[in-house]
């Protein structure tokens, strides 16, 4: 990946020098060896800050929203998940394709920071669970690709819904208690929402208490209303990047809800992989006359 870092810097530098974009969004090193963080580079000389390593987990796609009304183009580096996220933003008409320069990357899977901190430098750090499960590690939609567009990570045969299914098999009370335990500790900091590429509303209903939908009170009921509503809002548009879960300061397994819905959409309305096709019809933006009938 070090070699690619150099290519990445060179690419970014060229883009800025040639004026192909006003800014390049990539990653730079954070405070610790196991942390890489988003970097916003607009001067060619600053491209030296850019890196590409196994800690570039941060999904950069959503940052593009900050620059959608700015003049000129923004270049962005995308892994597979970032790429799917970007596609969802395009599908949701939040970005204009012609205003973005997409540089694709082949992702080897990102290493788990929490594990890294625990295990220490030099030990073998496992990949994030979401990366182990990832089936689209490479950028899907790009203007050019750095390195070879060749999958360099082991691809599981299918999505893993085992955790969802394990939960499903519990009794109603057991299930409920699990969710209460999870959402009791929710701080409603909205990190999950703010990092989520599918959460791209101009103004979220949870930011408008006057709308009557939500209150700021923190309790299990309100927290679960938030969680379930968000899950429904991103239904059919969640690309499974798992950033919500990574962003959560209290370690709530948020993807349990999203994956459940992905599983059900697949089973009920046919296989659908969000963000893999910009032209696809959103599952909850339509219907089929032949949809399963359970309400007779």
């Amino acid at each position, binding site marked *: 990946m070090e070699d690619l870092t150099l290519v990445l810097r060179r690419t970014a530098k060229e883009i800025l020098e040639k004026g192909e974009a006003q800014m390049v969004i990539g990653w730079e090193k954070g405070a610790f060896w196991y942390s890489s963080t988003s970097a916003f580079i607009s001067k060619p000389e600053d491209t030296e800050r850019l890196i590409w390593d196994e800690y570039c987990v941060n999904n950069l796609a959503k940052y593009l929203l900050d620059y959608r009304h700015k003049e000129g183009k923004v270049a962005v580096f995308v892994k597979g998940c970032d790429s799917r996220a970007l596609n969802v933003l395009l599908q*949701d008409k*939040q970005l204009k394709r012609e205003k973005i320069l997409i540089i694709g990357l082949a992702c080897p899977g990102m290493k788990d920071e929490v594990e890294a901190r625990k295990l220490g430098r030099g030990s073998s750090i496992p990949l994030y669970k979401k990366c182990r499960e990832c089936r689209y590690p490479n950028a899907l939609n790009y203007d050019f690709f750095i390195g070879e567009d060749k999958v360099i990570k082991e691809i599981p045969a299918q999505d893993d819904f085992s955790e969802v299914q394990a939960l499903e098999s519990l009794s109603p009370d057991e299930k409920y208690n699990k969710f209460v335990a999870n959402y009791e500790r929710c701080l409603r900091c909205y990190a999950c929402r703010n990092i989520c590429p599918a959460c791209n*509303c*101009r103004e979220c*209903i949870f930011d408008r208490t006057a709308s009557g939908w939500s209150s700021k009170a923190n309790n299990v009921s309100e927290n679960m209303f938030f969680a379930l509503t968000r899950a429904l809002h991103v239904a059919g548009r969640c690309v499974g990047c798992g950033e919500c879960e990574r962003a959560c300061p209290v370690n709530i397994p948020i993807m349990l809800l999203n994956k459940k819905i992905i599983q059900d959409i697949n089973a009920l309305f046919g296989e659908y992989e969000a963000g893999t096709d910009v032209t696809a019809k959103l599952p909850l933006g339509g219907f089929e006359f032949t949809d399963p009938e359970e309400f007779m």
Partner: protein
Amino acid sequence: MKRVGVFVCHCGTNIGAVVDCPQVAEKAMDFPGVVYSVDYKYMCSEPGQEMIKKAVQEHRLDRVVVASCSPRMHERTFQRCVEGAGLNSYFVEMANIREHCSWVHAGEPEKATEKAMDLVKMAVAKVVKNKPLQKATIPVTDRALVIGGGIAGIQAALDIANAGHVVDIVEKEPSIGGKMAQIDKTFPTLDCSACILTPKMVEAASHPNINLLTYSEVEKVEGFVGNFDVTIKKKARSVNMDVCTGCGLCMEKCPKKVDSEFELKMSKRRAIYTPFPQAIPNKPVIDRENCTYFNTGKCGICSKVCPAGAVDYTQEDEYLTRRYGAIVVAIGFELFDYSVIGEYGYGKYPDVITGLHFERLVNASGPTLGKIKRPSDHKEPKNVVFIKCVGSRDPAKGKSYCSKACCMYTAKHATLVREKIKDSNIYIFYMDVRTPGKGYDEFYNRTREQYGANYIRGRVSKIYQQGERLIVRGEDTLLGRPVEIEADLVVLATAMVAQPGAGQLAQKLGIGYDKDHFYTEAHPKLAPVETHTQGVYLAGACQGPKDIPESVAQASAAAAKVCGLLSKREMLTEPIVSEVNESICAGCGMCVAICPYKAIELKTISERIQGQTVERQVASVNGGLCQGCGACTVACRSAALNLKHFTDQQILAEVNALCL
């Protein structure tokens, strides 16, 4: 703070005998916003409404809740009432404490009273959030479309045209006339069907305000009341209508013979044809499926013989889009295809026919020139058996409903047989004889008494061929004994069913239909010719089985509605539509895909964001197209869309109130 008045209606004893109305009224005073509350015997009565108006004045009420019957019954009444009191008509809400309470919880007065309080509480919670709504106006295009050129369509078109409005009739067959053109005589007067129909057909064809679009179908309907943009497909006739004189030479010379649909396959027509001699327009079409030229590229005789040079093999389907203010749907009915069930040997024994076949057999211009001859050997039948309710009133094999006209046309058929074949015997198997209608029962009695038709109450269990005759076996349930009749001809009164394409057309028009695909009227009693889609009206048997006088009456009624609409240059629209909060809308377009009326599109707005002018897209609702279903509001994640009068906040307020 809003000032709500609550008016609890006893509806005589309908509500009052179960729900403790005075207690409900008293309790209502505790609900937030309520400053006045009262109960009264009949809120909808003149004094009741006066009471509301007076209370609005005296107690400075700005919102009103009426706890009484279903809003589907009296919402308009009370809207007008509060309007009369100087309030916006949308400042009233109804709590349905009759249909949803007293009538269904008659044995539980205490629980019913408690529920009534809840319902009032919900209505109060909603009404304080009601906003004044104003009806808007939309232009009305002074042109009507009638779909279907049968007697109902023709009548509707004539009435509309006579009132001075332009009408287009779209008919899928090459000629107008519909089923009535196939019928020989009409009951109970026995006047000749053609004699009364053809003049109307001619009148329609020659009316300056009527355009006939035969051999045409409705392809697409867009728009809304007053402004329907309808795309009509004019199927290629292969005959230039402007040039053709209707001389008929081509039809004489055409070498290709095909079963005639009009004669129900009992005779032949040519590949270039008019469905029947009195067809209007009386100009032929080429049936491309069967035409030798179209199938092999050879022949071309019609073109060669046509003195006017009207035959045009290169014609293509043509699409035209016109704007109409109103639409009358009069696509009629079809007969139940009993061969599918195969009972009674229909489809197997040639001498088991339907009533419509019989009409052709008895018709002077029909395949037998009016002589009743049975199809198998063209012999005159002596014993004729009629079986009624074939497919009607038979939920197991056919339709659950009564086809309404069969009792009378069977009686008519019996009369006609007896008149034409003096030594014939008539046996009519029936379940019931239903003859409501002017002169109908008298006609039936004549059939029995004067013409000697034998009415046998009971069902036929089996029909089988024995030699040249058909053995009809059944039971006379009145005498409680089996019956067996040797018949020469069996006529089945098969059920009237909806046209096969009725469902698709309904979807294009956005109107409802029932399980049998008959179109649903807006109200079975009070809006029998309207549909739920404003500006679309129903005439004739597409709404349900009907005889001719009923179809004509309904057609005239629909025409009256159309004239009422078209007589105005603009009309008021319902203000209950979706609205967009542009500052919140992110322009994702989810709602655009979801709107069944294509009432939402994305538009570009420019806006100052932090000192910079930016352009962005937002959803925009066309209030004329929007019908107020609210499906878009759910698709809108950020709740930028809201449905007026049924806002998120109003519904949530009701939910909250219910849970207090």
